[in-house]
């Protein structure tokens, strides 16, 4: 497997990022170099090896209500709010 060419703008868009032309050029070169380094992994035989999965949940807690953030605290950092709700730009025309 050789290092693939990433379409940086497409991937950035999936990540909700808009890159400047300078960033696009710079990241393309840097990421190809980094992905080139990652090619070493394709040479490791892993046929029967199971993937590492997140650790098994050591304990399930009781499903009972406990104190949580107040509405005031939860909204304390909201950039815009009204009537105990966070305001965002219109999502439906």
């Amino acid at each position, binding site marked *: 497997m050789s290092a693939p060419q990433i379409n940086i703008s497409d991937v950035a868009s999936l990540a909700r990022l808009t890159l400047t032309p300078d960033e696009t050029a710079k990241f393309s070169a840097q990421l190809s170099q980094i*992905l080139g380094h990652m090619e070493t992994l394709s040479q490791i035989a892993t046929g029967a090896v199971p993937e590492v999965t997140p650790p098994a949940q050591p304990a399930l807690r009781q499903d009972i209500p406990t104190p949580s953030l107040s509405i005031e605290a939860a909204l304390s950092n909201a950039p815009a709010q009204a009537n105990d709700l966070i305001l965002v730009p219109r999502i439906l025309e």
Partner: protein
Amino acid sequence: MSLAYETIATLRHRLLSKEIHPRDILKDLFTQIDAREKTLHAYTYLNRESALAAAEKTDLSLPLGGIPIALKDNLNALGDPCTCASKILEGYKAPYDATAVSLLRQAGSILLGRTNMDEFAMGSSTENSALGLTRNPWDPTRIPGGSSGGSAAAVAGRIALAALGSDTGGSIRQPAALCGCVGLKPTYGRISRYGLVAFASSLDQIGPLTRTVEDSALLLSVLAGHDPRDNTTDLRPPEKFLTQKNGSVQGLRFGLPKEYFLPGMDSETESAIRSAADWFKKNGATLVDVSLPHTPTAIAVYYILATAEASANLARFDGVRYGRRATDARDVLDLYHRTRSEGFGAEVKRRIILGTFVLSQGYADAYYRQAQKVRALLRQDFEKAFTQCDLLLTPTSPEPAFPLGERTQDPLKMYLADVFTISTNLAGNGAISLPCGFTKSNLPIGLQLIGPRFGEETILRAAHAFEQAHDFFQRLPPS
């Protein structure tokens, strides 16, 4: 002598004997900060007034009563900023305490301030901070390491007694090594991550940076334990570490992994590590040659898995609920794009893009899944090595602190700075870095001791014995 030069253990003794008051410690620390912070820039925020107020009402009977501690700027502490050294969290004030912070408060410690870091803990030099770079106390033209560079520079520069950091791929141990202090990355699951701003959740772990191993053990004893708010924390009952300090390493087996002693490595680093190994042998320990054969893959595995997890974790910074919000957005999608593009720095964008790519359709099998499988092989390497030895002994960093600016344009070279620390995060084990020598140009060299999972007691016992038999921890950076 200024109280800022003392350790937590000695100050606790003097506080309990009423020889000094907590405000005396703060006064001396603030004097040091006023003299040195302008050069070092270790802090992003100082709690001067609230710390002085807290000093008047501390309960000295608590384990850390009256002891000021600094926090890396990615740990939420109620009412304080938590910037992660990013423009995207400008103006954010934490609405709650991280569990680790809450445990420090309950143990009587005073929150001194918040330390600089690479943005969202992504970096090895603290040069990726949006709030300015931090300098190494031993040579201000050099990096302090990263990402907990502010914590390490503050402790080594005698402007904090101790600080918390976070370690995803070496971010506590590498700056501790480069600044000449003690940095402990506990076993994954030892300390709750609740309230630590997540970078890569399967790798992140909070830990202390201190002047001595004893202080590291004091902090670990306060911080360790199960937390119902972090279900990856281990269920074992609370432990007190390093309660016996007999200084003996008799009978311990130290494994020297051949993959960590490479031809062409920095000769002064290699010689300091070999001397440390010889010291353990002279004092009754055994040295064993071991192999961790998948070590050469660790950087690739790490930068696939850590960036994949980061791309998901950092999706929350979208300008909706907290932090920066771009103005004049046309619609919600435009709001996300503009907020994130304006708010994140270059390294964070680079890693989010890489992480998004390795998880994307058509590439996830070759990158993400293959990396998870190789991670399993890396873990097996450690498990096998620990059937032959009690601790692994390695350099923390392949070289001492490098000059500021040397690697900022070469991310891959920067990533390679973590080569000796990241495997431990991938395997989930605990490890410590402690000073074991200095270069001819007076830069600290760090020794790494890696333990089996939940083997912190053995790590701390061996590290303490080595530390107390040498004077490295007592040396002071030039003022």
